């Protein structure tokens, strides 16, 4: 959130709180392979990425000037 998406600290904390609430308040009924829904986690992460970059499928690799922050 801070490094790649360059979110401000307060924005990142808000986004993290919202993310954990959405992901962890939704336990799987039959937790075979993990107690929480990976699909839910993916959905919430993608929505954060979309809010910041406009594209939920944005690549991790940054083009252009990466000297500001590499992660």
């Amino acid at each position, binding site marked *: 959130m801070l*490094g*790649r*998406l360059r979110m401000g600290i307060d924005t990142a904390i808000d986004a993290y*709180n919202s993310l*954990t*609430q959405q992901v*962890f*308040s939704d336990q799987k009924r039959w*937790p*075979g*392979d*993990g*107690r*929480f829904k*990976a699909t839910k*986690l*993916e959905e919430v*992460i*993608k929505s954060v*990425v979309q809010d910041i*970059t406009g594209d*939920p*499928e*944005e*690549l*991790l*690799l*940054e083009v252009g000037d*990466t000297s500001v*922050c*590499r*992660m």
Partner: protein
Amino acid sequence: MNANIPVLFRSYQSQETHSGCKIWEAARATSALPTFFKHIEIGNKQPYIDGGLGCNNPSELLIKEAKVVFPNHQIGCLVSIGTGQAEVISIRTPGFFQQIVPTGVIDALKAISTDCEATHEKLSLLFKNSPNIYFRINVEQGIQGIKLSEWEKMANVEAHTMQYLKREEVGVKLSLVINTIKSPKAQLMIEQFGMKKFVM
């Protein structure tokens, strides 16, 4: 899925960059803590699990990477921020379904906190003769009992963190961190760090 060989997801070009990796895939892979979420497959069906299993304190890995990315540079400042975990994040009393997790995984998780502090000790030794370059910031007391999934306890985390930050010696340390970042005085070439001491 070998937890002993950490994979780095990079936002910059390097020989090992996963060129097609998306931001959400990297975020998902680094959250794939067993018993919490299923592992994820990226690229050529390579399964990934959270690095907390074998590499929860990546400081040594960072120095190794910095040597490759920034050869002939100096280290100005290294700040390591802990998550205040003195014990295993989630696996304390395994429920029925968690009992199907191999005990090897549970043992590995239990070793994480020791591993973090061991890395910190190693780095402290490494920087012993170069004061005010390496800093470790970690809320040592109060939030160790809070599980990763307990989102409703965020206010507790915040309160303990504020208490930690108010401590005299922590305030002094933070001022030093700020000064060092603003005007680094390091004279240590990155190559001077004897990586032979590191067991990777």
